[in-house]
């Protein structure tokens, strides 16, 4: 405890500014001066001065980021003028995480392909129409012709994109239940 207080008193203003910056960065949501003061065990005035200094610093060096007062706290964010580039970047990112329903449907298709919607329904026990649409949109599965049976339903299988995304050379590289059992023992 004593050591901590000693350490605190030996902090330079530069150090306080650096820690404030790091804390605002990890918080994500707006961080109040009160919280900052508590974590640092410094008084509010010192913290306020540090934040002001930090805001100025970001402005002066024309950073791509800014420290903004928002909802009663301080938050780090990108400068508005770069919104175009940021939007372009966000669009290039891999598409959103698969829902459990989509992942389940994908698993059934991967292991049972070629497989029809009624067959997927039978295995999963729930309707998979929207999951299938999601997987088609993400190009993880493709239609593989119709099955010669009542209603001639469409059959689905995994795509080349699926192999790339899951790092598979060919379908035989999918782990089998046996591989898994070895691990569980």
């Amino acid at each position: 405890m004593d050591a901590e207080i000693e350490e605190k008193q030996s902090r330079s203003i530069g150090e306080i500014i650096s820690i404030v910056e790091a804390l605002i960065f990890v918080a994500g949501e707006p961080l109040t001066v009160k919280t900052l003061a508590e974590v640092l065990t410094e008084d509010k005035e010192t913290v306020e001065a540090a934040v002001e200094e930090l805001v100025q610093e970001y402005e002066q060096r024309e950073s791509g980021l800014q420290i903004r007062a928002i909802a009663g706290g301080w938050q780090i964010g990108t400068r508005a003028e770069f919104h175009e580039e940021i939007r372009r970047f966000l669009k290039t990112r891999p598409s959103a995480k698969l829902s459990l329903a989509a992942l389940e449907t994908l698993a059934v298709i991967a292991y049972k392909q070629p497989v029809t919607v009624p067959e997927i329904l039978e295995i999963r026990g729930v309707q998979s129409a929207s999951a299938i649409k999601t997987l088609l949109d993400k190009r993880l599965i493709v239609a593989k012709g119709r099955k010669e049976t009542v209603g001639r339903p469409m059959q689905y299988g995994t795509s080349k994109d699926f192999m790339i995304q899951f790092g598979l050379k060919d379908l035989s590289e999918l782990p089998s239940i046996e591989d898994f059992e070895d691990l569980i023992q």
Partner: protein
Amino acid sequence: MEQPTEQLSFDFKSVQPHIVSETRDEIKLELGAFAGPLDLLLFLIKQEQANIFDIPIAKITDEYLKYIRLMKTLDISLAADFLVMAATLIEIKSKMLLPREIFDEAEEEIEDPRQELIDRLLEHQKFKNAAEMLYERSTVEQAVFTRGQIESDENNLETNASVFDLLTVFQKILERHKEEIKLEIEREEMSLAEMLKHLKAKIFKAKEISLHELFQEMQTRPELVLAFIAVLELVRTENIKLLQRKTFGDVILTKV
């Protein structure tokens, strides 16, 4: 204030089995430092201050067997690998006892019976040291934090499922399915009369039924066959007919 974190540091250099408390788990934890028989051997060699290139095999074998007996009396389930190593040691020990002359006649460089074991120990030691390096790296790395969540994160999570996630998920479905099959077997199967009744009620209510959808609803093969026969029966006996509005379109069951 922070609670002391368990297992915060490993003493890689001197792993020594000792009982910390009386609960069985604790004993396991401490002995667990000998991740395998090679670790135990390295420890014994060090304890004897022996040279790894000239292992006093008789002494080390005795010590090794003593530890195995200790673990057994502590009721710790021994991995088979420990026993395999015990057998290997005994074999090397007996080979060392054979008079050298028998081999000398072959006029070839005689390999030390211990050589293979020494190689394995040296190789293993390298990876133990590498593990220590990884441990130190991760400790340093844990002092660095990345930014908190921002708005754009929520819409842009990366697909991070691996092939093993696919397998795990698939296995869960199969298990779930197994239970359902059990239930289905117990359920009494529909008779043709019941199927006819069911279909008539349905068509009376809906006026039109898509055959495609009707067949999809059927849970089992027998039900599907029953439904098919029932449709034919209804068309034959009731004022119900089948029609197809366009080529290759859905076949519809409709009341006349």
